[in-house]
């Protein structure tokens, strides 16, 4: 795994944020002080301002041509005012002195009486940057972006005559974020995020299947090109579609399941990750509530949430409350050791924030969310893991998952999977949903590979209607038993 680069305070981020967010309307950092003063009304014990501007670009190829391209600009300010467990929230898509004053006084309406506090002076805090600060959209010219998509189309079509449709997309996002909170926080972040995706339809003998592949991270579009994503993901999408053309019906029932490395780490995101978010544990609504220090997974299982990985899709230099992104152990050798926290839930639970406060935009309230969540490598040879299974499923790619954090039940849906018979991978099987109970499933992890991989950078996590980019990862894993939702009973 890459080691993050650690550089002294991101002065540049702050300068860029002021120039981008405040200067256009003639404001300076002092405007934040008066805005914060408005939000810190009577009875308010914490307030913060979140200023954001984002530029999003997408280029889509279909039928060999880039026929669709779009550009979106968004931005504004979101203001929170808190009194104990209560939060008042208002936002505006204008960053002006009037908007700051109005949103501040609206948000502070959550409390009507009590002491009036002054914001703490800004406390300088060292900040590491986890990714480059460049505008990722300008890394390639329009002609180069189109050429990259056409290359993917050409390679996919040449790969196999069964390929009948190819679509490819290139998207990029550049965000400038500035946070000022009454606890002395002043922090800025410049966040690039790019992604390249290829999806194909293959038709053979009247049967139709899809394959897709993609990836990206917090870097420039130029790096996508330099890393050869067009060829890699075009070939991968075709390979997956061709495998699925041969797939037989999946079995139904309880079977041993081997999960491949990387993206199947969505298991951890669903089976344990959400259940370890601070809000659910403060409210006692998570199946993991009150279980700190207890065994919640098999020995050998260590799961972390890590915002500090260089250039990863889920990485954060600072979270959306200005807390530096961190490496947070969640489960160590099977024992529950930590939750993911934002400021509100950390304060109410008497814990420290872990840099997991995230929000979709200025128009959404932050909550504890995952960043990059993965299981550390074990000792087992992946080949030995497969050899140990008499009859089971080997799943290497997934479409998505979901969890009921209260009952602990989680699902994730395989999009590429195989039968294991007598320790060997045999026929591909159709996509099937796997279902289990988080703590139980983690207790059934019996072998852990030495081949930790992170996903290629495609994850979007949804919670209470808010989407944020995340990463997952794991080594090859064996679960002794999981329910496989095929059609062959």
């Amino acid at each position, binding site marked *: 795994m890459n080691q993050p680069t650690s550089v002294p305070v991101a002065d540049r981020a702050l300068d860029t944020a002021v120039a981008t967010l405040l200067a256009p309307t003639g404001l300076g950092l002092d405007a934040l002080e008066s805005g914060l003063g408005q939000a810190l009304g009577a009875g308010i014990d914490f307030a913060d301002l979140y200023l954001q501007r984002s530029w999003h670009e997408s280029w889509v190829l279909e039928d060999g041509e880039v026929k669709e391209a779009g*550009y979106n600009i968004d931005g504004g300010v979101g203001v929170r005012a808190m009194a104990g467990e209560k939060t008042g929230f208002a936002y505006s898509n204008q960053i002006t002195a009037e908007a700051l004053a109005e949103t501040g006084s609206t948000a502070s309406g959550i409390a009507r009486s009590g002491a009036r506090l002054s914001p703490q002076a800004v406390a300088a805090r060292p900040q590491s940057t986890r990714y480059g600060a460049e505008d990722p959209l300008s890394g390639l010219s329009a002609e180069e972006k189109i050429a990259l998509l056409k290359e993917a189309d050409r390679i996919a079509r040449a790969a196999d005559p069964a390929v009948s449709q190819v679509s490819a997309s290139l998207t990029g996002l550049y965000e400038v974020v500035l946070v000022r909170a009454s606890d002395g926080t002043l922090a800025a972040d410049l966040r690039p995020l790019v992604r390249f995706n290829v999806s194909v339809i293959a038709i053979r003998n009247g049967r139709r299947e899809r394959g897709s592949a993609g990836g990206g991270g917090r870097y420039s579009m130029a790096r996508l090109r330099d890393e050869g994503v067009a060829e890699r993901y075009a070939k991968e999408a075709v390979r997956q579609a061709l495998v699925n053309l041969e797939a037989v019906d999946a079995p139904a029932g309880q079977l041993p399941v081997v999960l491949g490395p990387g993206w199947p780490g969505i298991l951890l995101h669903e089976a344990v990750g959400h259940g370890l978010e601070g809000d659910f544990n403060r409210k006692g609504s998570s199946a993991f509530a009150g279980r700190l220090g207890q065994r919640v997974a098999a020995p050998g299982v260590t799961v972390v949430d890590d915002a500090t990985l260089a250039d990863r899709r889920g990485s954060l230099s600072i979270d959306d409350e200005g807390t530096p992104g961190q490496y947070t152990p969640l489960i160590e050798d099977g024992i529950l050791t930590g939750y993911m926290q934002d400021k509100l839930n950390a304060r109410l639970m008497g814990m420290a924030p872990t840099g997991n406060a995230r929000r979709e935009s200025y128009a959404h309230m932050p909550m504890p969310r995952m960043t990059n969540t993965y299981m550390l490598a074990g000792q087992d040879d992946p080949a030995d893991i497969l050899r140990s299974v008499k009859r089971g499923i080997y799943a290497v790619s997934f479409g998505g998952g979901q969890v*009921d954090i209260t009952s602990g039940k989680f699902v994730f849906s395989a999009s590429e999977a195989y039968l294991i018979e007598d320790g060997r991978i045999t026929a591909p099987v159709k996509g099937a949903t796997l279902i289990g109970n988080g703590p139980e499933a983690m207790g059934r992890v019996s072998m852990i590979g030495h081949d930790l991989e992170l996903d290629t950078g495609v994850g979007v996590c949804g919670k209470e209607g808010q989407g944020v980019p995340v990463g997952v990862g794991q080594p090859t894993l064996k679960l002794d038993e999981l329910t496989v939702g095929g059609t062959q009973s």
Partner: protein
Amino acid sequence: MTQAFDAAAQQALLESRVAAALAQAKTLGADACEVGASVDQGIGVSVRLGEVESVELSRDQGFAVTVYVGSRKGSASSSDTGEASVSAAVEKALAIARHTGEDPAAGLAPAELMARELPDLDVHHPWALSTDAAIDLALACEAAGRGVEGIGNSDGASLSSGEGVRVYGNSHGFLGSQRGSRHSLSCMLIAEDAQGMQRDYDYSSVRDPRLLRSPEDVGASAAERTLRRLGARRPATGRFPVLFDPTQAAGLVGHFLGAIAGGALYRQASFLCDRLGEPLFPEWFTLVERPLERGAMASAPFDNDGVYTRDNTFIEGGRLASYMLSAYSARRLGMETTGNAGGARNVRLQAPLASREALLQRMGRGVLVTELMGQGVNGVTGDYSRGAAGFWVENGEIQYPVEEFTIAGNLGQMFANLAGVGADIDTRGSIHTGSWLIDDMTIAGS
């Protein structure tokens, strides 16, 4: 509400912005142009354990412009409907259209299909609700639920109320506007027994606040739905009929609509490609769209292309009678638009309806599914495999709750195996349906 929302003034402002953008695009050399703009404002409050948790005042705006230069297309959008931002978006869209490739199917919908009449569809019912009144409703809702014996914890209750305006115009000279409102109340509760915790919820969502279910009713029903899940077991693996409750049955209709949507068809990404006219459902089953129904959730006189909406019949006597097309997807398929740019509006079914009890009797032994989890629906093949929770049924009677199992099949086969539709119609969403009984699915459990 503390912020006033003047819908008429907002509409006039957005209309002027749309008109200005269309004029600017023409001046700058666009051959055709279309512009959409919207503004929505509302309040959302949430309470938990008898205390206010959050109060949120929202005001969302959006603006999107698409220009056509010959058969090339460019789009740009922004959350800011200010003059400068709109003008910048037009320029950006034109810049993009210099780079995109030729697309013979690109362009506006035919001018003669633009909606001519824009009737008031009775979907705008603002609610002059103060923050305190909103909080009181949410508190009453949660209290009613927590007052039921056995409810030990709560995920809270929320009330949200909002209204908005959307405007669409294009260079055919079409300019249409529609105002709308939506108000909802929801409650999620938690109960626990020796086996663990369960949660469930209920909600009411309406255009007209006078039709909102009472807070006491929503809270009590959320409690009942939560408590009935305690003591869940895992069902046996095997082949059984499945009764989908109305919410989950609406999901099946949604999968069907996804498979007849033009975008999926011209991309060959649907298991219903080239199936027009073929029998898909039993012959007693008909599925229609009623976009002009007054007061309904998705009513609209024009679609996202400006095309007039009309009553469509997607399934007639069990056969696939029509696809669901926009102007663009219609051109790609060599067909005519069905006025469905932006999707289906108010889907209704026409079939003999049976009581829930009669459907359970007909099922005999199987599972009633009240919750589905995950994304295991493959629109390309129709393969279906999802996590589920619900109730085990023997001799036509509910026996005990079940959880941690999957149901699997293929949508094509499931539609053909539809054995009955319930009279227990859920009218909260855009798709109105009762329960669906589907024979012969695979359950994977213990």
